[in-house]
């Protein structure tokens, strides 16, 4: 991307991994981000970690939003490992839903950028995802420049 041009919209993947199917929250957040001008890829629940990594690669995703209403956040660290193993360590990951306080540090430690619990505001979510996507874009652009040189 040349300096001075408008950057294209952030590309976000909203998904659910594991076994739970409660998707009211993920659908609302997807609509919020879409209405905020981002390009949102939305999947049905029950994605495997491999499927999410594949989609993130194919769709050139900047930020992955994982919604967890049951206990599926327990396998998010595995998702982070899989992303890194696929060379997608720069992709931002946020988690939304019901994440018990004592289980949050493990997610942050694994590289999750933010956790949005119940009651998080729309603006808070949009603001964070936009900033995170911009940061990811910078990394991607730097990589591209490096390849070009």
């Amino acid at each position: 991307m040349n300096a001075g041009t408008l950057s294209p919209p952030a590309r976000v993947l909203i998904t659910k991994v594991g076994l739970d199917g409660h998707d009211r929250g993920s659908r609302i957040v997807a609509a919020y981000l879409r209405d905020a001008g981002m390009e949102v890829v939305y999947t049905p629940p029950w994605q495997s970690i491999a499927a999410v990594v594949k989609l993130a690669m194919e769709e050139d995703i900047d930020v992955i939003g994982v919604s967890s209403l049951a206990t599926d956040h327990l396998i998010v660290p595995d998702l982070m490992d899989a992303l890194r193993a696929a060379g997608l360590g720069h992709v931002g990951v946020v988690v939304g839903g019901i994440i018990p306080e004592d289980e949050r540090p493990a997610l942050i430690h694994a590289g999750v950028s933010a956790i949005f619990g119940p009651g998080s505001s729309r603006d808070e979510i949009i603001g964070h995802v936009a900033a995170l996507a911009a940061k990811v874009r910078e990394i991607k652009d730097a990589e591209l420049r490096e390849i070009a040189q």
Partner: protein
Amino acid sequence: MTKEAVQLSLPGFEQAHGRWRADYGRQIETDRVIRNRSRIEIKPLYTPRDWSGDAFLADLGFPGQYPFTRGIYPTMHRGRTWTQRQLIGLGTPADYNKRVRLILDAGATAISLLPCNSGFRGVDCDEVDPVLLGTCGTVVNTTEHMDQALAGVPLDKISTAMNDPSPFTLLAFTLAVAKKRGIPWTSITGTSNQSDYLSHFIANHMFYRLSLPGSRRVLLDHIEFCRNRVPGWNPVSVVGQHMQQAGATPVETMAFTISTALQYAQDCIDRGMDIDFVLRRFTFFFDISISFFEEVAKFRAGRRIWARLARERLGAKDSASWRFKFHGQTSGVDLTEQQPLNNIARVAVQAMAGIMSGLQSLHTDAYDEAITTPTEETARIAVATQNILREEAHLCDVIDPLGGSYYVETLTDQMEREMVALIGKIDEAGGMYKAAEAGLVQSMIGESALAFQEKVENGEEKVVGVNCYQSDNAEHRGRPTERPNLERMKEHVARFKAYKEQRSQADVRRALDALARAANSARENVYERIVEAAEAGVTHGEIVHCLRRELGFGHPLIIV
């Protein structure tokens, strides 16, 4: 009849009403427009001009009498209070058994069984990451597991509600256990709580396992089998809860639920079943939100609409078929993670709305519902809430205590009109099956969910601790989350694998072949073969995989 046309023969009414209007207008110069969750405008005062009681006999009548607006039984809670039914499901079958025995020892006569999310997805415990097992329900994959889960439980003396979506493997395991124990199936009572595949296709996607036509077929076979062989069992529970949890307004929820029930009833009629034989065992399951009066009006209107449709449209002759029996669960969506103890107050208000609506059975959420599966202590408080409402608050002294309130009757009528209009819309779309297949209902629910969230965002709908009266949440946190013992769960999975090795492979193959054949033959009852498969040692996952192959995999229609 327009309001203006109502002539009240109350001397002095007009003058007094006019005086109040003027006083009110002086003190609140610009009154804000208040709408309930169903978007019906709520006035500051209701009088005989809104509801005069002229149509008392036609619209209300007496409890236990058509159209049952005031309750489906003559005595209602004065005779017998609601059934106290808490959802239970955790860990291994042994963990579940320990919890259920505790509840039975405390005097409960009704239990429930919630399977693990892996079961909902239609797979066995050896097909998923063990860290996800048993966190939200019990891992029951075989008749043997069910035998362990129900050890010491007198199957012929308790009623069991099973969260058991199509193809109803949990009931099959239970029937197999009953046979082993020499208990006749005719003495088994309870409900297939999650038989409403349309609600799963539309709103609760995690329970959706088979394709739409496949689900339709299996449900009808299940109804026919149960009505003939397990007559005390309720094979159909039409679930409004999922749709309201997914964002449908109370009016939409009731309308869609009744449209769904009409669809199932019509499918049974088309199959040649006797409508009274079937409807007698129809039950309903709803969410109770904190919008108190709206919920009361929702249930009263629903009872009336169902009675009229069952009699007039479906042609049911037995008054038992017109009765709208429902289980209510306090709404988890209204609960907050912030200041979680506040949820005890919310649950009490929701439960009161359900009780004053004349429900038949009630689950009260534990206050930590918005955070995790309940612990023994939080589950105890949820039950105590019901006990307090029943024993201390005198809520059961009078039948339909809000009946005759100008407000509640007006709202009941208004909501009924809107529900009937929506049911008409679904009729126009060709019934609920087609409306769901086309995504019509999903779009409406999605829009309502977004509209409600918008109101929370802009503060129009207040949520204490979330968009008002916020406080530092830290003080309420810190309790470690209880998770199933991973080692024990891994042992459970290992034993399951060993079990699969040791059983008669010939029996399993025969049962699965018979099941696949039945799925492809309209003359056979698939559910009968499922029960036989359970008896032959076939697992939950094997049954679901077989039916998914023969009848199609269930992909819910999700609309963002």
